[in-house]
């Protein structure tokens, strides 16, 4: 493991991203626009529709976005031959993965800070717990999305296929994470499935932070981190120095 190489990879990924102005704009503006849209939908309605859904959405967006961005970026790296070139150089797989995690961690932090800021300041989202915890959960979600994206990119040959993994892996998690039906009211089997999916804990954590003054989210955070680490290890196994 070498800090020099990790930083070089992170810087390179961020430079590539910066060159793609449209993607940067989408990454930063879209989450804020979606939160605003959600708020707008509920403005004329009684009840706490926005306040109930916003925390879950703040967990979902970085997860989905980073899943897509990472799966396409690493797939590109695999198909362009640059990954093979890097692995033939003195670069550890860990350096490569950490570099990516660092770069996307930075992007996710900025992205989530904007979305959380817009939601709490302009859209009057009540957060009882500390707002910075919202950010921590969001960044972990983003890293989880990145790790899963990296893993699935090994099973895709084209960018079309990579994008198809989104509905396959992500939509079931969205359906079962407690956004549509409370997790404890799901049919028994689906409840168990929901317990096995990382996004469920992300949404739980977000909701605790916004509902409780002193939320206890350590367990949720530990689980999300464990899922992300497991996905990264699986992802590392798909980085082969030798191929057929």
């Amino acid at each position, binding site marked *: 493991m070498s800090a020099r190489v990790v*930083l070089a990879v992170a810087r390179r990924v961020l430079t*590539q991203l910066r060159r793609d102005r449209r993607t940067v704009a989408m990454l930063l503006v879209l989450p804020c626009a979606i939160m605003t849209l959600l708020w707008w939908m509920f403005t004329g309605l009684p009840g706490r529709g926005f306040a109930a859904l916003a925390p879950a959405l703040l967990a979902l967006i970085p997860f989905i976005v980073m899943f897509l961005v990472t799966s396409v970026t690493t797939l590109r790296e695999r198909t362009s031959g640059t990954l093979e*070139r890097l692995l*033939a*150089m*003195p670069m550890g797989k860990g350096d490569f993965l950490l570099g990516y995690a660092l770069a996307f961690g930075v992007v996710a932090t900025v992205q989530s800070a904007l979305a959380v800021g817009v939601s709490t300041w302009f859209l009057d989202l009540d957060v009882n717990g500390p707002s910075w915890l919202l950010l921590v959960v969001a960044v972990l979600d983003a890293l989880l999305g990145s790790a899963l994206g990296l893993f699935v990119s090994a099973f895709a040959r084209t960018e079309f296929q990579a994008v198809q993994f989104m509905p396959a892996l992500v939509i079931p998690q969205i359906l079962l994470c407690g956004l549509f039906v409370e997790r404890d009211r799901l049919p028994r089997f689906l409840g168990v499935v929901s317990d096995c999916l990382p996004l469920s804990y992300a949404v739980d954590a977000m909701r605790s932070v916004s509902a409780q003054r002193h939320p206890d989210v350590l367990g949720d955070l530990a689980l999300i981190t464990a899922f992300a680490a497991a996905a990264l290890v699986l992802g590392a196994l798909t980085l082969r*120095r030798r*191929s*057929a």
Partner: protein
Amino acid sequence: MTTGGFEVTGLTVVRGGTEVLRDLSCTVSAGEVTGLLGPSGCGKSTLMRAVVGVQQITRGSVRVLGEPAGSASLRHRIGYVTQTPSVYDDLTVVENLEFFASVLGVPRSRVGDCLTTVDLSSHRDAVVGRLSGGERSRVSLAVALLGEPELLVLDEPTVGLDPVLRQDLWGTFHALAAAGAAVLVSSHVMDEAMRCDRLLLMRDGRLIADDPPTALLARTGTADIESAFLALVREDR
């Protein structure tokens, strides 16, 4: 036996269910430019991948600079240019080189030197995706030169380049060999063969000749490498 260059013994590689390399043996030594020639699909790139250590092999052994191919300790001693340029299209020329320089841990000054070698100094701030095919492959070549490798494996590095630049690059290859490196260059343009110190001719996953170009012409009684190759194929049947 020196520890420079590489040694392939009884190498068989199966790709997609067919034997792409069949019981192939050869030795490439340091201090020489060795040409790897043969028709499209004969297995040149596969052999190079095996030497660099990125190809899964079925049987046989490949020893590079005295160690088994693919060893971790070889990774900063080999420069490899893949047939399709493997550089980042969305970075500039200099950003690409600086990135690979930090991965290799070589000083930044190497970037300018290697750009001069491949004659791309005037394009240093151009985004690679907007370069011509020949310019792109030169960026890829410059990356391989960064680490001053002891073994250079170049898969068709001169495709699409003009004669002047081609001549310059062959000059560079010979200079590197003279400085003690082993240089393996593949091509399917037979007229480049005369520029090599030694030739490996391949056909259908096997080696059909391993000689200096002049010796090859003398042995087959032909005037150019293309005819020599055809003569060898006839003999081989």
